[in-house]
């Protein structure tokens, strides 16, 4: 009898939908059906059935081919390579659980590495703006129950977060928004006529790269001053009309995406958006939220901020303190400036996402990919270590885009012999401790679990 598992979390986008139902085979090894998820989420679950999934690590041979090796061999090679490197870079973590992120931090400290996550090429600038200007945000539940004006600025949830509009932002009927879409006014600010823009009541087709000026124009109008005839390609009257809509809202919700964080100005665009949110709160209630990309990309920000005080771009090379300054300690900058001599890619695909020059620099040195599947990074890597898929055959905590933690569950049994990210990193850490003749340090919870017979170290 196949089993229907309810309340499953989806390991795809930052919406982290937790209402998925998955029908699995009797022996819990095959996914038969996926209900409620979007097409991408559905495919992600079915992907776990792929019989060609790697089950053993593969090491690059002198002739350039890849040869399967055992896990202990791969762990030993990774531990030795990381200890030997002067400045290794560990990057990724968009698509794994918080347990793995926490475990890798121990390796990073031991190896004197730079620890970075996908935010560096995604919402990193949002963090910088939050450092500078605060983050007047809320949860997606509040957006659903209260927001009657929704602004999508430089983001396209219809494609990037397919169920965002139906679960949280446009269509759902909430406590104060019982008429759903009928009650909501949707503004979209985007240089292209995206599918989200088509859905919006007002589309402000901004000149590409002029978001900062438009934010400033909104703020100037809100303070009662006049603005030039057109700003960022949008006529004054249209800006005033949009400002009036936001001002008259009962609860205005601004969602922003890559269109703000990765055009000229980057963190300053978000900074201005946060200032606008603050100004709107003089008139009504307004909140702002980053449209985080992956289902647990908010996780490393949470986990590492707790461990090191910084969410990303954490330089641990000094051994005594963490140093963070994107532009210097960010992955792409480190790669382009040839500042690192070992690269570890975890749960993401730097081979596909980084500029080609950055990848070329990284490829001069040992390149390790840790990923459940074959990807571009795994195909150019010197060592590829497969792990279980978090959210499919490995449970764990994930943080949704509004920084709400959700416990994801495993729906099928993992491939025999394949460890989770956490288990793999713990084994690498233990090997590094052996090689350096030091005592591993575990948190109490982990020590109890790992060595139930001996008392906790800390």
């Amino acid at each position, binding site marked *: 009898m196949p089993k229907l598992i309810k309340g499953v979390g989806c390991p795809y986008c930052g919406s982290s939908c937790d209402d998925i139902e998955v029908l699995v085979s009797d022996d819990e090894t095959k996914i038969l059906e996926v209900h409620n998820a979007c097409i991408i989420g559905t495919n992600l679950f079915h992907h776990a059935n792929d019989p060609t999934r790697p089950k053993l690590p593969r090491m690059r041979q002198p002739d350039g081919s890849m040869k399967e090796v055992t896990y202990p061999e791969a762990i030993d090679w990774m531990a030795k390579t990381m200890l030997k*490197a*002067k*400045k290794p870079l560990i990057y990724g973590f968009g698509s794994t659980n918080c347990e793995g992120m926490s475990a890798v931090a121990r390796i990073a400290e031991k*190896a*004197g590495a730079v620890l970075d996550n996908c935010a560096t090429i995604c919402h990193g600038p949002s963090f*910088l703006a939050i*450092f*500078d200007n605060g983050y007047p945000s809320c949860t997606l539940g509040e957006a659903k129950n209260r927001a009657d004006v929704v602004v999508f600025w430089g983001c396209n949830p219809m494609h990037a977060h397919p169920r965002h509009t139906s679960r949280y932002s446009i269509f759902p009927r909430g406590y104060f928004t019982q008429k759903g879409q009928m009650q909501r006014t949707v503004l979209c600010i985007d240089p292209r006529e995206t599918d989200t823009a088509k859905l919006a009541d007002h589309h402000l087709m901004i000149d590409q790269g*002029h978001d*900062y*000026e438009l934010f*400033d*124009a*909104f*703020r*100037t109008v*809100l*303070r009662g*001053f*006049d*603005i*030039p005839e057109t*700003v960022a390609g949008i006529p004054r009257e249209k800006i005033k009309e949009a400002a009036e809509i936001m001002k008259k809202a009962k609860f205005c919700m601004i969602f922003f995406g890559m269109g703000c964080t990765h055009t*000229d*100005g980057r963190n*300053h665009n978000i*900074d*201005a958006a946060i*200032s606008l949110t603050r*100004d709107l709160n003089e008139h009504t209630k307004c909140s702002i939220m980053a449209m985080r990309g992956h289902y647990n990309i908010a996780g490393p920000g949470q986990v590492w901020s707790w461990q090191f005080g910084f969410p990303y771009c954490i330089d641990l*090379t*000094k*051994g005594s303190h963490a140093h*963070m*300054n*994107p*532009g*210097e300690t960010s992955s792409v900058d480190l790669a382009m*400036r*040839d*500042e*690192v*001599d070992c690269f570890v890619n975890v749960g993401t695909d730097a081979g596909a996402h980084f500029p080609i020059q950055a990848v070329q620099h990284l490829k001069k040195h040992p390149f390790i990919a840790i990923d459940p599947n074959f990807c571009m990074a795994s195909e150019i890597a010197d060592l590829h270590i497969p792990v279980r898929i978090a959210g499919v055959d490995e449970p764990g905590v994930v943080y949704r885009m509004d920084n709400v933690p959700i416990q994801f569950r495993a729906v099928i049994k993992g491939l025999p012999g394949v460890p989770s990210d956490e288990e793999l990193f713990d084994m690498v850490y233990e090997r590094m401790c052996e090689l350096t003749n030091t005592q591993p340090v575990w948190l109490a919870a982990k020590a109890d679990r790992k060595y139930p017979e001996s008392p906790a170290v800390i």
Partner: protein
Amino acid sequence: MATVTLKPIKTPELIFEGYSITPDNFAGKTAAQIADLPGHEGKILMRLGDFFEISGNAGETAADTNIVITGDCSRVKYIGARMTAGTVTVNGNADMYVGGWMKGGKVHIKGNMDSFCGIQMEGGELICDGDAKNHVGCAYRGDWRGMKGGTIRIRGSAGNDIGTFMLGGTIIIEKDAFIHVSTHAEGGTVIIKGDVEGRVGGQMVKGDMYVLGKIKFMMPGYQKVDTVEKEVDGVTYKLDHYIGDLGERHGKSKGQIVYANLYVPAAA
């Protein structure tokens, strides 16, 4: 005055963090002792002597010490960072954080500089004969108290983020700049003699900016109030006076609202 000469003998494989290269760290030391001063290449603790041939002893105090680097330092960070007195001259390029957090003395880079030069500067003089990259005289990430004093003069051009969160001091860029000048600033003066792409004085509360070339995209929150004659870096110009950023909060002084000032050449 004593002069210590550093001759680069080896290019670091990664990047050398030469945080010891300041008159303060050199003061009272012999050439051999200076060669033993620490620096990092990645996680490896190195000595200055690993990358430089050092000649000449330092003076008794930082103020009595001149440092001359006779070659390229494009892979050496933190030259002159946190110094309080004395001079540092580099006859070539320098990497990031030149004169960062400096409180006094003088740094002269004869080539180009990378980003974050003069970050959080409090005093002294930083001169660059070439170009600088981004974040000249900027605040450290998340700090709302940026550059407080001193002078930065870049004879070439600069990138983006000039004088972010600036509170005081002067930045002079003799050629062009890209975007974001004096963003969030609450004081200080920025003079740009070339053209700027845009975003001059966004979210700016207080302070002065002079752009003697063209601003391609003006911030919507600035309004022209009058035309004045002003001396800028020793030359008098007829300038249009704008106030802003009207979208940002502003304090009051003697009952009058204090805006930030932007001066651009008056239309003929």
